[in-house]
């Protein structure tokens, strides 16, 4: 029998997801994978499918599912903000894994907007950690130095710069793949609070967000030592990859990082 099961679930039976349910020992964390952008639960190039199956093979129960109104999921008909909806959906997802695999602690995984959803849902009880793939990162003074200094001496870059300036009167402050970032101080404070509550984080940045992040040091510049140097936080920059890990060798690098971090921080019990 196939080790994965398709479910319709949730407070309004409006969510659809696929659970991977290997036999597990009591206490093993469940891994919940959230939508990347507007793409359904399979993920870009089947990334979520491959990742969850690899984690199943390591002994982790998983659920990849569509948040309200995304993919195959419908709306819950509740009034409330998108943030409240994401938290409630993750509660429903956690309840499903509790019911079918006995998990009581969960790790959230999200790429891009999925990372933003994971950040929101980290406030939920039972969430013990998160893997943020191209999660929040803000341009810093260091970023601008590294970005603009080499360009100062290039006439071609100057021409391009002036042409862009002519085209756009107001340049947006952040390149955020179409989503609006909350203020940096808010994210920094929330990360610090969550770390203080005992959550563990794995940040992985791709080479595809070079317009936003151009050196591993930027993470500390952005969030300060209290967050960046916290022992429960790991940050890696997978230079050379693109934003959605299109090439197989890049996906392999990513999976290796995520698996390694999970095995170290949340080893399957038993």
């Amino acid at each position: 029998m196939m080790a994965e099961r398709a479910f319709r679930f949730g407070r309004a039976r409006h969510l659809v997801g696929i659970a991977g349910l290997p036999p597990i020992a009591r206490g093993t964390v469940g891994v919940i994978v959230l939508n990347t952008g507007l793409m359904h639960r399979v993920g870009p190039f089947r990334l979520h499918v491959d990742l969850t199956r690899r984690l199943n093979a390591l002994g982790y129960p998983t659920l990849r599912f569509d948040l309200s109104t995304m993919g195959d999921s419908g709306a819950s008909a509740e009034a409330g903000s998108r943030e409240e909806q994401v938290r409630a959906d993750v509660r429903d997802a956690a309840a499903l894994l509790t019911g079918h695999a006995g998990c009581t602690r969960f790790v959230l995984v999200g790429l891009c907007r999925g990372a933003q959803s994971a950040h929101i849902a980290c406030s939920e009880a039972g969430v013990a950690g998160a893997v943020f793939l191209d999660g929040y990162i803000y341009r810093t003074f260091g970023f601008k130095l590294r970005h603009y200094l080499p360009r100062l001496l290039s006439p071609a870059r100057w021409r391009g710069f002036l042409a862009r300036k002519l085209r756009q009167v107001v340049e947006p402050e952040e390149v955020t793949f179409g989503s609006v970032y909350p203020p940096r101080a808010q994210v920094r404070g929330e990360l610090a609070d969550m770390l203080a509550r005992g959550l563990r984080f794995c940040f992985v940045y791709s080479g595809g967000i070079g317009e936003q992040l151009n050196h591993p040091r930027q993470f500390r510049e952005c969030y300060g030592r209290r967050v960046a140097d916290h022992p429960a936080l790991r940050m890696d920059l997978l230079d050379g990859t693109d934003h959605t890990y299109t090439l197989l060798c890049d996906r392999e690098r990513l999976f290796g990082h995520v698996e390694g971090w999970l095995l170290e921080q949340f080893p399957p019990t038993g």
Partner: protein
Amino acid sequence: MTPASEPCQFGRDGALIGMYHGVAGHAPVGMLLCPPLGQMLLRTHRVYRQLASGLAARGIGVLRFDYHGTGDSAGDSLALDWQHCLADIRSAAAELRVRSGCATVVGFGAQLGGSLALAAAATAGFARLILWDPVLDGARHVAELDAGQEALRNDPQHYVRPRGVEEAAGQWLGFPVSAQWRAQLAGWRAEPARVPTLILDSRPEPVAGGWSPLAEAGARVLAMPASTDWSDLHRLEHAILAPDLLRMVGAALEPAA
């Protein structure tokens, strides 16, 4: 009121995953949505869902599903196999008949999903076919995919520096490709089906050779008002939109439903 869609598992060991869009009571006509492959399967997910919901609201039972080695279904992406896909279509058509009670099943597919629906028409027992920009010449499609992969590895919007030939080998736009799959696809040449066939044409440029040999055999061709660029390297993660698809498919099915 139309019942909500339900996820389902069928085929050997429940290895195939799909979504059934049921109707209240008995559905005289069912439609099987055969997905395209690779990233196109993901890009068309939303438009397939919209089509399925819309048709179910008109009293047509609809099943959409993923082939073995694709989407949510069991199997590694490298296990993709033409004959396996055709067998999966037969399984899915049987599942649709059981769930809906329909006597008539219409096969629908976009791009390579259209090719597979066409190839499986007889064995799956399709009464009609609706094919949206089907691939009719496998060798040409393989050449296009190879060119797309080469463009990807050199694309500055994806990579700061061009990626090595070895790093990009054996893949088509994000998916691994076995030698067997490549040969199977390259060997695909469409033959007309013995059932009424409608081609929905949304290609931005006319296809070399037209819709031969289907058009010569009597397939009806309808141009869609909005074109679809299936091969834009910079829209690999963007959903395919087809605002006229439901209206056109619904109109084509009216006599049958």
